[in-house]
C-alpha cells in the first residue's frame, strides 16, 4: 500500500492534536463543554426514553390534571394529566431524529452536488449552481408548506421538506472549497497515476473538504430542530398524539395565564437544545480551523 506511511502519519498527528483539543475545549470554552454534555445527556435520554419513565406519552390521568412538579411527575402533568417529563423525552426523540436525519440527508445531497459542480467546473458547474441560486433564497417554511400540502403532514414529509431547503447552502460551501482542492498537487498526482474520477473524488477530494461539513452540520442541526418545532407549532408538523416540543408550546399557550409551565418547560427544552448546538458548532469551528490548530499545537 503506497499510502500506508502517509495514513499512519496523519493518524498519529490527529491523535496528538485530538486529545489536548478536547481538554482545550473544557478549559477555553467551558460553556461549549457544558452544552456538549447537555446534548450527550439529551441523546442518551432520548435513546433509552421508555426506560427512564413509568408513563407513556399519551397516558391520560383525569384525576391528576395540571399537577405541579412532584415525585410521581417530575415536571408535573398537562391538561389531560399526561406526564410532562415523558412528553419532553418523546419530544426530544422527535426533535433529534428529525434534526439528525435531515442533516444527514442534506449533507449527502449537498456534498455530492457541490463536489460534482466544483470538480467538473464549466457548463456543469454553471448549470448545477444556478439551481442552487434558485433554491437558496426560498424560505424553509414555504417549501415545507408545499411538501406537506401535497403529501400531507407527517414526520417523513417534514424531513423531506427540511432536506430540500437545507442542501443548497451546503452545496455552495462544498463547491467553493472543491474548486481550490481540485488544483492541488495530490489531485494532479492521482490523475497522473490513472485513478478514475469517482476514485479521485471519493479518495482525495471529498476527504479534504469534509471538515467544512462537520461545523456546518452541527450548526444546521440547531436550525433544523428549530424549523421542525416551528412547523409543529403552526400545526403542519408532527401530528398529535405524538408529542413534539413545538406542538406542546402551541397547546400550552391556551393555559399560559393559569399554568405557564406548560409553555415554559417545552420552550426551555427547545431553547437549550438549539443554543447548545450553536455553542458546540461554534467551538468546533474554532477547534477544527487549521489556522487555530497550527497556532496552538
Amino acid at each position: 500500500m503506497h499510502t500506508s506511511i502517509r495514513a499512519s502519519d496523519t493518524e498519529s498527528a490527529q491523535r496528538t492534536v485530538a486529545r489536548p483539543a478536547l481538554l482545550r475545549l473544557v478549559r477555553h470554552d467551558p460553556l461549549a463543554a457544558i452544552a456538549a454534555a447537555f446534548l450527550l445527556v439529551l441523546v442518551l435520554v432520548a435513546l433509552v426514553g421508555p426506560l427512564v419513565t413509568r408513563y407513556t406519552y399519551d397516558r391520560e390521568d383525569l384525576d391528576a390534571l395540571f399537577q405541579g412538579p412532584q415525585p410521581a411527575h417530575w415536571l408535573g402533568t398537562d391538561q389531560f394529566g399526561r406526564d410532562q417529563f415523558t412528553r419532553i423525552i418523546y419530544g426530544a426523540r422527535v426533535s433529534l431524529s428529525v434534526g439528525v436525519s435531515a442533516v444527514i440527508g442534506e449533507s449527502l445531497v449537498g456534498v455530492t452536488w457541490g463536489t460534482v459542480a466544483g470538480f467538473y467546473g464549466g457548463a456543469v458547474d454553471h448549470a448545477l449552481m444556478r439551481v442552487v441560486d434558485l433554491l437558496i433564497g426560498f424560505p424553509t417554511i414555504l417549501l415545507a408548506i408545499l411538501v406537506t400540502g401535497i403529501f400531507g403532514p407527517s414526520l417523513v414529509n417534514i424531513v423531506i421538506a427540511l432536506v430540500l431547503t437545507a442542501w443548497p447552502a451546503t452545496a455552495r460551501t462544498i463547491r467553493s472549497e472543491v474548486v481550490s482542492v481540485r488544483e492541488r498537487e495530490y489531485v494532479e498526482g492521482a490523475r497522473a497515476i490513472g485513478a478514475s474520477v469517482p476514485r479521485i473524488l471519493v479518495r482525495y477530494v471529498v476527504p479534504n473538504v469534509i471538515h467544512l461539513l462537520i461545523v456546518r452540520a452541527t450548526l444546521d442541526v440547531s436550525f433544523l430542530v428549530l424549523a421542525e418545532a416551528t412547523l409543529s407549532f403552526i400545526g403542519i408538523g408532527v401530528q398529535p398524539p405524538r408529542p413534539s416540543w413545538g406542538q406542546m408550546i402551541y397547546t400550552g399557550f391556551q393555559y399560559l395565564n393559569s399554568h405557564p409551565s406548560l409553555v415554559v418547560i417545552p420552550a426551555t427544552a427547545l431553547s437549550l437544545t438549539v443554543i447548545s448546538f450553536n455553542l458546540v458548532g461554534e467551538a468546533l469551528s474554532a477547534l477544527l480551523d487549521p489556522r487555530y490548530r497550527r497556532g496552538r499545537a
Partner: protein
Amino acid sequence: MARYVVYRVGMAIPLFLGAALLIFAAGHLAPGDPVQTVLGDHYTPAAGAMLRHQLGLDRPVAVQFLQYLGGLARLDFGTSYVNPGLRVGDLVGHALPISLRLAALAVVVATLVGTLLGVGAATTQRSALDSLIQVGMVLGLSVPSFVTAAVLVYMFALRWPVLPVAGWGLPQDYVLPVAVLAIPPVAFIARIARSSVGEVLLEDYVRTARSKGIRARRILFRHVLRNAALPVVTTIGLAFGNAIVGAFVVEVLFNIPGIARVAINAILQRDYTVLQATVLVYTALFSIVNLIVDVSYAYLNPRIRY
C-alpha cells in the same frame, strides 16, 4: 440603470414561470383524486366524469397548464376544492392585505429601532450600553419567535393586561404581533448598522471632518450615516422576507385572518387550489422583494451595476 432593471426583471420572469410549473406539476403528482375529494360521499363514476369535465381535468396536461397560466394572468385562481362556492382570488384578496400591512409595519419598526440601536452601539463602542445592545442582539436572533411571543403575551396581556391576548380589528391588536415580527430583524439590522457605522467612523474623511472642528452630530448625519446606509438598506429586504415568514407563527398565535392562516388551513383541509394560489403569491412576493433589493442596491452603489 434602465438596462440593469430590464435585465433583473428578465431574470425574475423565468423564475416565476418555473415556480408556477412546479406547483402545477406537484398538484398532478399529489396522491388522491381531487374530484373524489370534492364529491366525497356523493361520488359516482358519472358524477365524477361530469365534474372532471367541468373542471377541465379531462383535457391534456399541457392544455391545462396553459389554461392555468391564462387564469393567473387574469389573477383568476379558480374556486376552492373544499368550498366550491368560494373564489380563491377573493380569499387571497381579503387575507393578503392584512399580512402585508403587518409585515410593512414590522419592517418600519425594525428599521427605525434597529438603526437607532446599531448607531447607538457603534458610537459608544465598548461601553455598558454597547454590550447591553450586543447581548440583546444575540438573544433577539437566537430565541425562536414563538418563545418571545409567549413572554410578551404573558407580560403585556396577562400579567399587566394593557394589550389584548389575541384578536383582530382594533389598533391595539397590532402591537404584540408587530413586536414579535420586528424583534429578529431589529437584532440583525442593529448588528449590520453597528459594524457598518463602526467601519465608516474609522475613515479618513471622518477624521478630516473632526479635525476641521465640525460638531459630532453633523458629522454623524452628513458623513457617517450616508456612507453606512448601504448595507442597512439591503437588510430591509431581508427583514420584509422575515416578516412574511414569521407571519405563520404570529397569525396562528394571535388569530389573525392573514394569508399564512389561509395557507395552513388549505394544507389541513387539503384544499389544493387555495394552496396553489398561496404558494404562488408567496413566490411572487419574494421575487418582488428580491428585485427591489437588488435594484435599490444597484441604484445606491454604481459599482455593482452589471
